[in-house]
């Protein structure tokens, strides 16, 4: 039995990391927002960064996604040609490629990631045009199939997202990000501002998309239930440092550090 399994090595077992952080830190004067963070993220892997407000998790996400310049250490990313590149040393064209195509960034507030006054179809199509698509019919068809995929009625394709509910806006933001088939998606509290009933639906949708597309993702959340549902691995942050890291269910079911034990034991039973 074990022998028959040998042939099919899991497809998520790629041995080369997609992104690595080494000794990463950021200080604002005396304040160390984030310090000495090192890890490797592999293709198809979902990493959750958890911790309370002020723990440094959002700073870390901005460092990893090249929106902040680190005070110490570095972040490297494997470009599509297979070469690991230091993000700080990328040229403008390469940075643009990452932001427009190879990465997605899902903001907690969809208004930050969408253009609220233009149609939903244009919001999705814009990312395609940025990478050179110019056939209107194809762009519209692709946008429409993505709306379907995130469970938005395609009859609403010409409406602007300001007419959408919070949950629909968040799903539209996800469609806009995934349409270019990125390899890595950053998510900052993706379910943060939503009603609980809408959250469950969105989580299920994100979980399926991530596994169908084989996406790697880094998800910042203060909600341990979100980490449990979405992530393979988790890093717990406190005071700007990573204090515990490991397999998500292992860290949540068998937490070792005092602060992690406190976080896990503070979840209110429904």
């Amino acid at each position: 039995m074990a022998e028959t399994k040998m042939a099919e090595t899991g497809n998520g077992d790629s041995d080369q990391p997609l992104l690595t952080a080494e000794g990463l830190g950021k200080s604002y004067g005396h304040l160390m927002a984030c310090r000495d963070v090192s890890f490797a993220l592999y293709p198809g892997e979902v990493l959750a960064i958890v911790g309370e407000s002020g723990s440094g998790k959002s700073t870390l996400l901005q460092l990893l996604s090249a929106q902040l310049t680190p005070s110490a250490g570095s972040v490297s990313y494997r470009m599509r040609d297979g070469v690991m590149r230091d993000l700080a040393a990328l040229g403008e064209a390469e940075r643009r490629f990452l932001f427009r195509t190879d990465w997605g960034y899902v903001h907690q507030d969809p208004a930050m990631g969408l253009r609220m006054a233009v149609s939903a179809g244009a919001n999705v199509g814009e990312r395609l045009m940025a990478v050179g698509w110019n056939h209107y019919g194809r762009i519209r068809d692709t946008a429409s199939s993505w709306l379907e995929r995130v469970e938005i009625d395609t009859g609403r394709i010409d409406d602007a997202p300001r007419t959408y509910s919070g949950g629909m806006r968040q799903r539209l933001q996800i469609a806009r990000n995934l349409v270019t088939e990125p390899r890595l998606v950053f998510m900052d509290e993706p379910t943060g501002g939503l009603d609980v009933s809408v959250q469950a639906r969105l989580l299920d949708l994100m979980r399926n998309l991530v596994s169908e597309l084989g996406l790697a993702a880094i998800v910042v959340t203060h909600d341990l239930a979100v980490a449990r549902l979405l992530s393979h691995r988790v890093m717990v942050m406190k005071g700007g440092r990573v204090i515990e890291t490991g397999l998500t269910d292992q860290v949540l079911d068998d937490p070792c550090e005092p602060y992690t034990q406190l976080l896990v034991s503070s979840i209110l039973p429904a």
Partner: protein
Amino acid sequence: MTAMIEINNAQKSFVMHLQGGIELPVVRGVSFHVEPGECVVLAGPSGAGKSSILKMIFGNYRCDSGRIGIRHQGTQIDLAKAEPRQILSVRRATIGYVSQFLRAVPRVATIDVVAEPLIANGVSRVEAREKSGQLLRRLNIPERLWALPPSTFSGGEQQRVNIARGFISDLPILLLDEPTASLDAANRAVVVELVDSKKRQGVAMVAIVHDDEIRHLIADRIVDVTSFAAAA
């Protein structure tokens, strides 16, 4: 060496930092092995550490010391020291786990909850759902419930959904934590049949079963966990 599971001197304790850092020993000196096609039942009173041992074999609980050797894709891997990615790979290709309680994503239909492990292993959705339906039918979950999320089901129905989810894959190791606890006689008999057919396929199993009759029917060997009691 043909054993699928080979545990040597494994030890586990909890340190409760919120209770003044007291140390709760759970088990120590855990050593046993499981061959292909064999069902080993862990015996001992509540609190002896049976579930903890299963969780250690699944990589859900960490191991303080010792070795948890798992035969995975032709080589032996020590789960006590494995990287998270290796543990995930072992769970995808080698070890299945039927936990005591079903933990499913809200709003996902029962038939998809059961089919999910197959889809994660690359089986097509259609085929996975078909197999899921067969197992649900065999475990007497009426077809009109398949499209509903299991969260509204009775305890016994949820447990059967959980069993279907655990048995659907063709994994060489299966861990069973009280699979028959809240089932009636007819459904207990189905579980015994399912365990039997896994044995014939060469699957190595470790089970916790309190019901003496069921234990008799499925156990090839019994490992008494009280000998691993760590409480001094």
